[in-house]
Each structure stands twice: as C-alpha cells, then as structure tokens.
C-alpha cells in the first residue's frame, strides 16, 4: 500500500470526522426562512 494512499485515507477520515462534528454542532439548526420571520 503506497504512502500517498495511507495519507489520503487518513486525511479523508479526519475531514469526515470534522464534517460530522460540525454538522452535529451547527448543522441541525434550521435557518429561519422568510415566512418564519414574518
């Protein structure tokens, strides 16, 4: 298994974890729409 593949997979895993944490912290809040604010 080449080094580039191991590094890419590791970085993708870290990226995926970051996206998941970000989504859990901020992604679930619904953005108020025009209709909601009226």
């Amino acid at each position: 298994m080449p080094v580039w593949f191991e590094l890419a997979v590791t970085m993708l895993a870290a990226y995926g974890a970051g996206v998941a944490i970000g989504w859990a912290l901020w992604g679930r809040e619904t953005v108020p729409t025009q209709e909601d604010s009226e």
Partner: protein
Amino acid sequence: MRIRPALAILSGAVLVAAMGYSIALSTAASFIEPLEEEAQAAIAKAGGRGVTARFATPAGAPSRHPLLTGGRRLPEDTRARVAQAVAAVPGVGGVFWSDGTIRASNARDRYEPLHCQEDVDGLLRSRSIRFEEGSNRMLPASQLLLDEVADSLRPCLGAIISITGHTDNSGTEPGNIALSMQRARAVREALVRRGIPRDGLRARGVGSAKPVAGLTPDDPANRRIEFAVIRTEPLTPTPVDTPGAR
C-alpha cells in the same frame, strides 16, 4: 448563488485527498529512507545475508510495507527471524517476501494449561464439596469452595474438565448413580454460573463404584466430587501480523 451542501462536502473531500497525495509525494522519500536504513541494519543483525528490503509498491510508489527479496538459501527459521526483525522496526507495516508470503506458524506461543489439576486437587485435599443428604443441593460452605475451584479452573479454559460425582453405598446402586450424576450436573451448573464455559465441562456420575482408596464403601466420606483435566486443547494465537519465512 447558493452552493449545495453535498457538493461542497464532496469538493472538500476531493481537495483533501489531492492534498494528501501531493504532501505524500513530496515527503514520502524522506520518510522512507530512514526506514530502509533501519530495516537493512535489522536484516544484517538477524543474519539475513543477501536479503534486501524494498520499500515500494510494484508500481514504484513509496510504501511502509517492505518486500523482502533474496535469501532463498537461508534456513526457514532465519528467514522468519529476518522478517520479524524488519517488522519490528518502528514505522514499518506488513512485511512480505517476493517469493510468496505466508504468515508465521507461531509454535512458540503455544498455550500451556497452568497446573489447574494440581490446584484443584490441592483445594479438595482437605475439604470437599458437600451436599444435603440424598439431594443434589449443595451446602452453603461448599459454595465458597466452589468459588475457589472456579478460580483455579479459569486458567485452563480450552481444556476439557471432567466432573465426576461419587456416593457411598447406602441405597440402591441405580439410585446412587442417578444421585451422583445429579450432583455432578449441579456442580457443572454452578461452575457455568461462575463463568466457566459449559462446553469444556463434562459431568458424569459413577455411584458407589469407586470408593476412596482405603475407605470402606459405606463410609460417608465417599460422597464427593472429583475434577480431572482430561484433555487440553492447545490454543495457538492467530498470527495475523507475524511475518513468517515465506
């Protein structure tokens, strides 16, 4: 213009993968070179004359997983020692031989039962597992003894342990055999409740056929439970990561 989240995440992933690839291209050589030097030193130390470690894939990309070549005339144990020495270098991944790879047969780490038979015999030398008269219900004091027996048998997991119930010769022999069988089964269940796997335990009852040597068959001391480690099954750890001679 609103960017679709899935597209943004996917683009980020592609970008991250591309970064990983480019970082690896520029740094892999400086990472692999010390590994190669340490691996060659380990090979020399292990007596692997003529063996070389190539830290690259067949396509030529640098890799942490070396391909060992040469050393065809070396004895098998030397080849295994060389492969294990290379695998022990920090940072090295799986080791393979160019002429075909099998994992090591890890004969040295064979499981040895730890004198369970002697430990149990020692426990039962001065005390015995006692039951209520004509019943397979154990006396409370015997529960404590059984705790100790279970602790002694625990290192012998993987062994077949025979539990034999005996009685004195009061009553009819068919009744005695049935009672001794029930008592042996009661002990087996008690051991299972204490965490000993059921499939390693064999219960049997022999009635009053085998009194204790030196005692008359009607002596109440013949009511007893005996344990015997009748077969051991060596458990060889699966050598998943241990490289072998080929």
